[in-house]
């Protein structure tokens, strides 16, 4: 089941005009911001499908930048996000892509600064719900049917066990888990699908563990 909570249907509280093209876009931008873990200096945003055709009318551009500025879907500042980004000297470019995506509402965001960059692809599946389908070229093979988190960590012994210990302590069952790395001993990724929604406290505890760089909810 893609939609698990009644608040996926009655909600979110948001700035209009579109749950998929405004609220969903803000959420995709915010995941990029959370995974990058700091305010980026620049962002390239590519829109595909319906996003490419209608982003101006729906404020998709404004919303996605609002997300990059860490604004939630109901934050009134979303409306002025392009101005706010300009004042912060955040450099932003938009592209309307011709390629036909698998999902009609697809955005690719690349963010960066002098210390690094991050690229992700997100889709907005309706009612403000989103899924992250790709990160830094890694395809995230998620069913989308369960809540999921993404953990970026150092490729060290015990890192995976420490995360699963926290989940066990909170009585959260892991449905599916995938671990991948680019190079031995360097950056590694865990994608974990769980059976229950994760409270902020669980995310905070995982973030505080040694060898863990970033944690983000990718399916809520």
């Amino acid at each position, binding site marked *: 089941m893609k939609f698990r909570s009644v608040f996926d249907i009655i909600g979110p509280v948001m700035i209009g005009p579109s749950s998929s093209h405004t609220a969903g876009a803000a959420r995709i931008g915010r995941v990029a911001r959370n995974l990058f873990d700091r305010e980026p200096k620049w962002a390239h945003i590519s829109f595909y499908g319906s996003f490419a055709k*209608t982003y101006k009318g729906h404020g998709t551009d404004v919303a996605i930048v609002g997300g990059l500025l860490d604004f939630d879907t109901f934050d009134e500042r979303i409306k002025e996000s392009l101005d706010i980004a300009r004042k912060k000297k955040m450099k932003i470019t938009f592209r309307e892509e011709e390629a036909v995506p698998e999902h009609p509402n697809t955005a690719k965001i690349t963010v960066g600064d002098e210390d690094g960059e991050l690229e992700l692809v997100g889709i907005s599946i309706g*009612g403000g719900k989103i899924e992250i389908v790709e990160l830094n070229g890694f395809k995230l093979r998620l069913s989308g049917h369960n809540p999921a988190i993404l953990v970026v960590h150092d490729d060290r012994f015990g890192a995976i066990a420490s995360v699963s210990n926290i989940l066990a302590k909170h009585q959260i069952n892991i449905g599916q888990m995938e671990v991948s790395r680019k190079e031995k001993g360097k950056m590694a990724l865990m994608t974990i699908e769980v059976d229950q929604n994760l409270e902020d406290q669980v995310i905070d505890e995982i973030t505080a563990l040694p060898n863990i760089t970033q944690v983000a909810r990718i399916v809520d």
Partner: protein
Amino acid sequence: MFRNVAELIELADSKQKKISTLMIEQEMEVTGKSREQIIHQMGVNLDVMEQAVEKGLQGVRSVSGLTGGDAVLLQNYIESGNALSGGLLLDAVSKAVATNEVNAAMGTICATPTAGSAGVVPGTLFALQNKLKPNRDQKIEFLFTAGAFGFVVANNASISGAAGGCQAEVGSASGMAAAAIVEMAGGTPAQSAEAMAITLKNMLGLVCDPVAGLVEVPCVKRNAMGAANAMVAADMALAGITSRIPCDEVIDAMYKIGQTMPSALRETAQGGLAATPTGRELEAKIFGLPLNKK
């Protein structure tokens, strides 16, 4: 856990519980949150809906200038006493319009199930206030019942205009509202399902063709008719009328129609009303160049 409308009705009948109660219990199970937390969260959404209606009834205008002010016109007309289709019905229509006018003006709303279809559920709910005199808890229950039916549609079909057209957005919202109206008016769970089926049947095939890609034309007026459709279908179900096609099969038909709908009619602003001469003219006025010529 219920996966479709038939299971939902079966659960309600066998446990002798309201649909809103079942939705709250399922939410507790899925999220691990307490009943109080869940009801409180829905209360916050209810407050946002009420504020949006109030704001819209004071008169708002969108940035593009395409929409705004119609909710006020309708309220004035109701007060004149000349309304033909009934004060309650038009009040629901006016409050649905108010919500969507606020949405179009980038105001704060609660998506039900989406932003583009956010007017129907609160429009009907707040119009029933004077007639049925619900207390706060009953208004919150209305939203849980609407949510239960929306939950089934979202998981078995779609609530996205880009995926399934307007039938998936305003169509779903109207069906959700009709089912909730029936429960609030004292109807049975089975009658709620009939109301949802009757409503959705009359929204099948509705395309998503927003002029200039804006959630304004025809979205605001589709919410108006969505609210009217929900009210009438609820009355029909309460009168004892049933749908020959079961609710789950109507939902499935909606899904299949959405899948075969051309992309030009699924929120791309390339077909339907968006592609009419006036639609294109408005688009050019707002964005300088029509989107299809860029």
